[in-house]
């Protein structure tokens, strides 16, 4: 009998704590599949951030460090500088990467750290219960934007890929989404490519994944997929913003 579906080796046999309809789990799986396919499980070190994915180190089979809120790129820098032949990746939410950790991501990219950054953009703070994220859309209601996000009061939502791509040390910058089988297949290829860029030592690779948070969006899982497509994608267009010629 041919086996057609199994848990990637890089993913541990642990029940994830994510809410129904949350796409954190899907992205974990994509990362694990990429690690499997590249055969790098034994030399990969992950860095978990502070957010709903704080327990990511429980879900992967590779080595992991847990970083302070926002500091994962700095922690990853430390690891990579000690172990330049290992594969190092961070897994960060939008609060973690685009708010408290902007200095760290900008400077890791500027330095061209040879690390891979998986950036989960769900337009809200999940873990702490639905506060505004830097990526929260205009008009979006959160617990700290009870009347909806207003440009003149709360500022505009931040586009990370568009910002990072300008930095010379960033080698691969792309935005993908986790809402449909087609988009997930694209996301999978992007994540594998990001690791390949790191393996070739080309610079920092960053994959932004548009994701859902049904719990704090106050939507059902199905409504969330629709909201991602209809509300998030217009503001956060998908596609490669920067890509080295060496990797297809």
């Amino acid at each position, binding site marked *: 009998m041919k086996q057609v579906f199994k848990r990637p080796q890089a993913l541990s046999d642990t029940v994830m*704590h994510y*809410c*129904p309809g949350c796409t954190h789990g899907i992205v974990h799986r994509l990362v694990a599949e990429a690690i499997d396919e590249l055969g790098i499980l034994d030399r990969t070190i992950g860095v978990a951030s502070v957010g709903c994915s704080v327990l990511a180190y429980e879900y992967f089979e590779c080595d992991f460090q847990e970083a302070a809120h926002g500091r994962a790129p700095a922690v990853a820098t430390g690891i990579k500088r000690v172990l330049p032949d290992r594969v190092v990746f961070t897994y960060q939410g939008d609060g973690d990467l685009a708010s408290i950790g902007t200095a760290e991501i900008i400077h890791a990219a500027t330095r061209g750290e040879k690390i891979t950054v998986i950036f989960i953009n769900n337009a809200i703070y999940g873990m702490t219960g639905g506060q505004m994220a830097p990526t929260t859309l205009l008009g979006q209601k959160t617990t700290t934007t009870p009347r909806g996000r207003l440009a003149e009061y709360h500022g505009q939502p931040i586009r990370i890929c568009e910002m990072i791509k300008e930095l010379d040390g960033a080698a691969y910058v792309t935005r993908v989404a986790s809402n449909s089988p087609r988009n997930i297949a694209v996301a999978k290829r992007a994540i594998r490519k990001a690791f390949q860029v790191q393996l070739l030592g080309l610079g920092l690779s960053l994959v932004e994944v548009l994701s859902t948070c049904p*719990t704090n969006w106050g939507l059902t899982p199905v409504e969330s997929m629709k909201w991602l497509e209809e509300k998030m994608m217009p503001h956060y267009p998908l596609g490669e913003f920067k890509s080295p010629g060496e990797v297809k």
Partner: protein
Amino acid sequence: MLHEILIAGFGGQGVMSMGMLLAYAGMTEGLKTSWMPSYGPEMRGGTANCSVVIASDAIGSPLVTEPSGLVVMNLPSLEKFERKVKPGGLMVINSSLVKKKASRDDIEVLYVPANDIADELGNPRVANMVALGAFVAKLRPVKLDSVKASLKKVLPERRHDLIPLNERALDRGAGLVD
């Protein structure tokens, strides 16, 4: 007088507002009260509970570890909290959802088909009020009328049209106790 009460169930079952109603009712009766929720990520989709203390004197810890009164709205809560009830205490079980019987024989147990009665009343969301009505009628930490009077303070304004229904649910629960 000291009642240490724990109310536990699924996230969306309204266990938090059951506790708040008790605390509010206690306050309006001039008693000392406190309400303390479980908090943290485990609440999402999982179990939620709140501690309520109603006392004639100043309240020590608002965290109830050995309840004298327990309401369990679902099975995981029964499994987690039954053994913690003080001997001689009261446990109300939502028997619509919890098919298991209590295993303790040193406490008083009241089986309340809260969801079935709520369905009869036409709104499954008032199952919590049925259970609360029975609990209050049996343990009498506060008067049922004080609980009813607290509804408009505890329910958000957009739910005030449901107050009569909530009152009926409380009465139906209380009616199970003589």
